[in-house]
């Protein structure tokens, strides 16, 4: 008994210590929150004129699908695909993009599922301005947010469909709420936690307004791999129209023409590529191989020679092709 009593004192002490620790913890938390609050400011934006966008915009006619359970991914995809003219239901998207054991959908599969409906998924560059530019151009944007804090994440997909620069408000179809208005500041705080992941889904031939040639070409090449050259052709044509000086764009168009069974058009595109960038060995190589197939032997020989002379990753391939050609 006395033994027990003796032990009581230290326990009281340790309880007091625990209580002290809790107070300290709460104080620390409050300080942290105040500090965090001090850091959180809205996105800094240029004037609408400098950004080249309207003061406000609202994309009419984006259908709203309320999410059920954890299925904001399939619901968001259905909204942008439907808007783009694809007739697909949330129910048919669920087995294509949802991960049952994760109770959610991951970004790579959001991107890949779009391709299964003859639409190209372009991931934007993660700037607030780019988001506004796409909305201004009439492209609804799928965004990923972490609505909670990094420690207890609550990942969420929503579809941005409009904004008002005056009121600093973004309009979103989100979760169970259509046309939800969110302040730029709060939206950006939650969006920043996904490293500002944003995606548009466009039919081949249309390009996002905010992306550069490399980003566009990566997206189209991924689409082409999952579908076929014929389906990707309009997209490559759009890229060469938008960036006519980009040799890789012409090279890619050449490959798509070739894959679609038009070797003459392919050779023309490869020629454009070599004119724009005479040291692009891979374009000389493909030009040579294409012309060889067309029976235009002298020009084919010249092209293969160029490819074999230029130092590149394809030099060995070019030398082999040249040897075979000479035999």
């Amino acid at each position, binding site marked *: 008994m006395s033994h027990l009593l003796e032990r009581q004192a230290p326990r009281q002490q340790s309880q007091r210590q625990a209580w002290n620790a809790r107070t300290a913890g709460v104080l620390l938390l409050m300080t942290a929150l105040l500090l965090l609050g001090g850091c*959180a400011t809205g996105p800094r934006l240029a004037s609408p004129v400098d950004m080249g966008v309207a003061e406000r915009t609202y994309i009419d006619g984006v259908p709203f699908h309320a999410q059920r359970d954890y299925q904001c991914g399939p619901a968001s995809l259905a909204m942008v695909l439907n808007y783009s003219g694809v007739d697909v239901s949330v129910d048919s998207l669920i087995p294509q993009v949802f991960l049952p054991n994760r109770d959610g959908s991951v970004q*790579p599969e959001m991107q890949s599922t779009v391709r299964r409906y003859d639409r190209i998924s372009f991931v934007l560059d993660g700037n607030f301005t780019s988001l506004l530019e796409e909305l201004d151009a009439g492209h609804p944007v799928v965004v990923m947010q972490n609505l909670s*804090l990094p420690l207890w994440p609550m*990942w969420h997909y929503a579809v941005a469909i409009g904004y008002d620069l005056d009121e600093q408000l973004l309009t979103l179809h989100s979760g169970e709420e259509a046309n939800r208005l969110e302040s730029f500041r709060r939206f950006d705080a939650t969006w920043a936690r996904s490293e500002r992941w944003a995606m548009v889904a466009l039919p081949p031939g249309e390009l996002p307004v905010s992306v550069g040639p490399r980003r566009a070409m990566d997206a189209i090449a991924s689409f*082409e791999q*999952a579908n076929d050259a014929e389906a990707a052709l309009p997209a490559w044509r759009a890229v060469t129209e938008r960036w006519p000086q980009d040799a890789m764009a012409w090279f890619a168009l050449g490959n*798509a023409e070739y894959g679609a069974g038009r070797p003459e058009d392919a050779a023309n595109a490869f020629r454009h590529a070599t004119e724009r960038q005479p040291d692009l060995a891979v374009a000389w190589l493909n030009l040579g*191989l294409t012309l060889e197939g067309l029976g235009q032997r002298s020009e084919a020989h010249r092209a293969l020679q160029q490819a074999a002379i230029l130092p590149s990753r394809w030099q060995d391939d070019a030398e082999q092709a040249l040897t075979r050609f000479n035999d």
Partner: protein
Amino acid sequence: MMKKLSRVLSPLLIAFLVLGSLPVAAAPQAAPANSLVTTQDALSADQVSADRERINEMLSRQDVQDQLVAQGVDPADVEARVAALSDAEVRQMAEQLDDLPAGASVVGALVFIFVLLLVTDLLGLTNVFPFTR
């Protein structure tokens, strides 16, 4: 500790490297002579070896299929899902599927966190509760 770890890891790594290079040696010398260089290969021109890449890609696609089944996806849907992924996405899925954020809009939180998140919601830092604007 580190020594112990590396003693276990290095033979494994060596084994993997050897295994990784075997299929390359076994692969046919070159694709049919007249095939063009693909756009995907040309765009990813900084990679060392296209052949090796392609084989790794095939292995990771198989790997991702298995992972999706483990995540509860119907095996009948798995093949088409993986086929739609680009090479870069396959790599991302194969390497870090468990770490990728899955959009679900749920939070596994306790009451204490509930209060915390309410405060951060009111501060405009988070957006967990629909009634806070």
